[in-house]
């Protein structure tokens, strides 16, 4: 439970009255280079008052991150620059400030935390030293004073064993801990403005929950104005005081949390909000069809390389058993490191399972190799997470789609006909065949990947986080497509996801994994509404915005 998110909330009168700490006025950012001028941002205006949590939401390409970088004066100098407008930080226009002045302002007036806590920290420097750098740049404190202050700050972000953390390198910390370090760094000088650019997107839900709580807590404590950039309406519903919706470099709508979530004025906002999948599973009848895929005690152990026979081994999956019926979508959910992807990769035999059986219509493919394996490959196909890396950029879409068919001896013209059909099935026109992947959007590419996977008429389709990289609006469409395909051809789907909302929407059955083991399995309705295990319960509770019914624009 975070803050008072469960109840619609008016912004406190105190923040209404105070002067904004950050005012963005008619900001435009353009691409550096020859004319014609291409604008990335245009006509951006909004402001934040002290103690306020302003969420900027938008899909990819909306310009929300560029806005934040412009505030910090961190636009990449060779490629982007502000062309018009003002950015006032406590009344001072940072666009007119000198580099030296900008450096002064950073970390003292405005600070920033980033999406990827791993890459945001210098990997070769101790985290304590990295926080220390802020103090060394901006204060005249002695070494001991600085250290004391840092330890205090680490304590304030609820780090255990702060002395040890001080002397740790980033890679020795967990993702959540790293983000706490980044937060310490940003807030140690109590800046007036904190810009948080998707700070929880790379984190697991349970960690996300903690970090959101922490940001809230510190904000309260120091009355910081937070500019929170996110694409996740769940998070928005949890924390926002006010919301700025952006699309294609422009502000679509600004309003209070309730205004936007409950009474969106713009169709775009409406579409966006209603696309957020519901956590409430759809009721489905239990299937009695044949079992297509049957995993029995599947285990995968990575052998650590050791000298003189001494080595550590890591069990990525241990004794995983599950089955998928014809026409069924079985979801495997879990946080990172739960082993869900390992299971998926073993099923398509991109990895060799250490033990156990993978029965496809009763045939065990777990141990097949070489020429035995090849015919079995056509029965199990996979769709990956990243649509941008799943298609060979150098090949035409048509060639990618027919690759499997050609491999299994089909004539090229027949294969091309089939490919056209398949592209139609996934909602793309036939002229897509002649084009290259980069000419398509992420969602379209994912459709192509699905068409490619279906080309071989597989018995099982494995979708490994297949919609996770997509914007919510696109995500909804792809999920719909998968469901339609299942209906039409009755394929069995093994659906890997970390997102309970997605799982709730599409899965008949849900398998929860943790630390390589199956924690709980059952129908989607059972698992999500009446979880038997604490872990499952914790996962559900951590899901942001679960108290809001986005489809119906109302709290639950």
């Amino acid at each position, binding site marked *: 439970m975070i803050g008072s998110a469960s109840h619609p909330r008016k912004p406190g009168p105190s923040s209404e009255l105070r002067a904004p700490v950050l005012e963005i006025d008619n900001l435009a950012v353009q691409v550096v280079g020859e004319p014609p001028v291409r604008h990335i941002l245009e006509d951006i205006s909004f402001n934040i008052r002290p103690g306020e949590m302003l969420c900027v939401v938008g899909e990819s390409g909306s310009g929300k991150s560029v806005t934040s970088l412009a505030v910090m004066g*961190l636009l990449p100098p060779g490629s982007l620059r502000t062309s018009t407008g003002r950015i006032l930080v406590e009344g001072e226009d940072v666009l007119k400030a000198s580099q030296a002045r900008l450096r002064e302002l950073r*970390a003292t007036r405005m*600070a*920033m935390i980033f999406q990827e806590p791993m890459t*945001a920290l*210098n*990997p*070769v420097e101790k985290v304590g030293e990295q926080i220390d750098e802020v103090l060394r*740049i901006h204060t005249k404190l002695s070494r001991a004073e600085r250290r004391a202050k840092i330890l205090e700050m680490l304590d304030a972000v609820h780090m255990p064993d702060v002395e040890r953390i001080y002397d740790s390198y980033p*890679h020795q910390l967990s993702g959540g801990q790293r983000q706490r370090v980044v937060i310490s760094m940003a807030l140690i000088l109590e800046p007036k403005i904190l810009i948080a650019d998707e700070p929880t997107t790379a984190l697991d839900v349970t960690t996300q929950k903690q970090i959101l709580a922490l940001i809230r807590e510190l904000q309260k404590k120091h009355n910081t104005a937070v500019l929170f950039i996110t694409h996740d309406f769940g998070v928005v519903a949890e924390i926002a005081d006010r919301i700025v919706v952006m699309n294609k470099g422009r502000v679509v709508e600004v309003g209070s949390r309730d205004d936007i979530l409950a009474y969106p004025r713009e169709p775009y906002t409406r579409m966006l909000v209603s696309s957020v999948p519901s956590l409430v599973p759809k009721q489905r009848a239990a299937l009695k069809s044949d079992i297509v895929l049957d995993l029995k005690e599947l285990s995968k152990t990575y052998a650590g390389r050791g000298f003189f026979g001494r080595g550590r081994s890591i069990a990525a999956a241990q004794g995983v058993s599950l089955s998928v019926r014809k026409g069924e979508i079985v979801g495997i959910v879990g946080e990172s490191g739960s082993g869900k992807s390992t299971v998926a990769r073993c099923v398509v035999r991109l990895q060799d399972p250490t033990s156990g059986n993978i029965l496809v219509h009763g045939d065990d493919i777990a141990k097949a190799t070489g020429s035995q394996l090849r015919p079995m490959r056509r029965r199990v196909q996979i769709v990956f997470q990243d649509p941008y890396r799943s298609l060979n950029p150098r090949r035409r879409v048509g060639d990618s789609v027919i690759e499997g068919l050609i491999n299994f001896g089909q004539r090229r013209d027949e294969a091309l006909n089939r490919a056209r059909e398949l592209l139609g099935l996934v909602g793309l026109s036939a002229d897509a065949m002649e084009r290259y992947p980069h000419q398509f959007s992420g969602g379209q590419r994912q459709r192509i990947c699905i068409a490619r996977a279906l080309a071989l008429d597989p018995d099982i389709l494995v979708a490994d986080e297949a919609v996770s990289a997509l914007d919510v609006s696109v995500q909804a469409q792809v999920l719909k497509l998968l469901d339609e395909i299942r209906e039409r051809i009755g394929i069995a789907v093994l659906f890997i996801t970390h997102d309970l909302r997605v799982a709730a929407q599409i899965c008949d059955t849900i398998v929860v994994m943790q630390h390589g083991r199956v924690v709980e399995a059952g129908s989607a309705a059972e698992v999500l509404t009446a979880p038997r295990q604490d872990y499952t319960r914790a996962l559900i509770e951590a899901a942001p915005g679960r108290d809001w019914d986005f489809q119906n624009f109302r709290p639950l």
Partner: protein
Amino acid sequence: MLPYIARRLLATVPVMVMVAVVVFAILRLTPGDPAAIIAGDDATAEQLDKIRQTMGLDKPIYLQLVQWLARLMQGDLGVSLLSGTPVLSMIGDRMGPSLALALGTIVVTVIIAIPLGIIAAWRQGKLLDRAIMTLSVLGFSVPTFVVGYLLIYSLSIKLGWFPVQGYKPLSEGFWPFAQRLVLPVLALSGVYVALIARITRSSIIEVMGEDFIRTARSKGATERVVLMRHALRNAAVPIVTIIGIGIASLISGVVVTESVFNLPGLGRLVVEAVLARDYPVIQGLILLFSFIYILINLLVDLLYPVFDPRIRY
């Protein structure tokens, strides 16, 4: 760490054996007859036969190989066919100049190249960057011997600052030692300065695109701090790798430099031995070189954790 070193060293044994056998084979396939070289160019066939017999060169090649390996196991590298001097002592004699030249070159290279690379990365795309990069390509485009002659002509003959040739061991005092090393080291450094300045520049530029650089800037760090404290150390691993490769490939440059400046080092020894088909000397040297090569690779790998705490053995 120790098991790692042990394993690495153990893994070098097959490589060294392979190198030794291949070199043995190459040598015996190469036309050239040490006997003819010993006897001079108007010896008769009968005289040559006798000499070959005395030196055991008439035996089948595999037998010679086995004998050589057997003696190697006892730490005996044999004696020079020509002078009869033990190979080990020849190598020992010649070690000093080469080592001094190599170490000097590494130090000078690092001192010159890394700052140049940093400056070029800092001024990326600007005039200074282009000037440095153009110079570095020029450094890569002039053969070492030409650089050597230029240095001798200008700094020794015309200005008289340095002797034109020779080597004095450190035991004869630092100045005579250093004075004779300056020009060879400068001549040899040219190529490596060019190489390492380039890699430093590109590594730093690559690191400058990382997220944590943005973090550092958002802390209010100056560009100097960003560059020196954050970028350089993260760029260290590729730089160290290239320096390692550079050292390992130093031997060809050393041969030329030692010739131009008349340094009595290993580079010259290897060429002399090859030209004279002094098999035991060549074999011993190759063994030494491959060992040094392997050792440098190991050292470079062991250095990685110093620069990057994520790497551990």
